[in-house]
């Protein structure tokens, strides 16, 4: 892609303590509208990577660029960075701080220095997108896990960022809420937002992402399409990732028929019957 990346990290390293670097020489560029899944085991550096993207952590080595300009970590610049790149935390209870849903969602836009009418409008829009209108006056501690997650996403939507980072969004959700979240992610990319999702859900990453980043022990081992990642057996072995079931099944069918993998593979269970029919003919 020739366009200026929205956010770019070049040779970024960060360590919480000296002997154990959490990020080692990571470089990646994110363009508008991308759909990126970030894979890796616990402690691989995904969360640290996100915190560096959003300016919460300042890399000890390397540089972060926002829309082509170096981030210097002055107050104004940090505010600008956090306006463009927003982070949805893994645990909603870490993120939620107000005593009503409405006040909670207004926190971000208020910090952007918008006028009251504009904040009001943004809160309203965010409530509507996350289907939370009837919860507006509720205290967050009386909401369920799935509702809290939606509140934290509404928090971020109200800031109108261009890139949203999700730190393991499905880790505390039941299957129904997970499906709903995937639908939300679809809607958001439909609006042209770039999304980057850290996840352990391989099936989701395969179905949803156009690009996959694989972290292992603080290093960025792979930055390519889902298919390239999952066909790289050595990488999968090293990182301890499993293949998505649909990919493994497609592979097995092609092997049984003695044909090479076609260019387009089924990404969802709905697409599978067509693929199977084509293969059988």
């Amino acid at each position, binding site marked *: 892609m020739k366009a200026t990346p929205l956010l770019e990290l070049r040779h970024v390293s960060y360590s919480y303590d000296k002997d154990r670097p959490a990020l080692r020489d990571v470089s990646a560029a994110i363009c508008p509208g991308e759909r990126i899944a970030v894979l890796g085991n616990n402690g691989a550096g995904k969360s640290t990577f996100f915190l560096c993207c959003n300016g919460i952590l300042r890399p000890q080595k390397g540089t972060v660029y926002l829309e082509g300009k170096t981030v210097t970590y002055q107050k104004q610049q940090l505010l600008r960075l956090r306006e463009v790149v927003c982070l949805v935390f893994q645990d909603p209870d870490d993120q939620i*701080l107000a005593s009503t849903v409405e*006040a909670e969602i207004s926190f971000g836009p208020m910090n952007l220095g918008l006028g009251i009418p504009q904040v009001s409008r943004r809160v309203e829009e965010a409530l509507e997108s996350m289907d939370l209108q009837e919860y507006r006056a509720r205290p967050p501690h009386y909401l369920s896990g799935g509702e809290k997650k939606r509140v934290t996403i509404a928090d971020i939507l109200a800031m109108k960022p261009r890139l949203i980072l999700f730190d393991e969004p499905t880790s505390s959700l039941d299957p129904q809420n997970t499906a709903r979240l995937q639908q939300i992610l679809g809607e958001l990319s439909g609006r042209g937002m770039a999304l980057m999702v850290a996840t352990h859900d391989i099936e989701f990453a395969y179905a949803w992402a156009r690009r996959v980043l694989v972290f292992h022990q603080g290093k960025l081992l792979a930055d390519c399409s889902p298919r390239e990642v999952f066909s790289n057996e050595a990488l999968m072995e090293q990182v301890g990732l499993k293949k998505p079931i649909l990919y493994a099944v497609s592979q097995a069918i092609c092997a049984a028929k003695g044909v090479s993998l076609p260019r387009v593979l089924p990404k969802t269970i709905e697409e599978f019957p067509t693929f199977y029919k084509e293969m059988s003919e």
Partner: protein
Amino acid sequence: MMAELMVLIYRYIFLLLDSLYTMTTAAHARLGYRTYRSSWRSFAGIGSNLLTRAFAQAGRSFDAMEARGYDGEIRFLEREKPVKGLHVVWSAGMLAATALILMLERGVL
């Protein structure tokens, strides 16, 4: 400043109580309250755990606030709440009661 603190305290009291409740249940589940001695030990363990957890939580919450552009001042959208007749009656009643108590105490009446 005070009002901001109140908002945060109100929010985090629930998180703290939640942790306390979970830990107490976990201690019960492992017979932590079987004897007088073990009850004290569980109590002490939970107390110290709660403190470290609170510090960790504070760190994470601060990060989350910074991530949304926190600059040292906590601002929320305030809804205008219309004053109802009942509110007026209540506050007038409270004021009158306070005045009455004061007068009784000072021996004015």
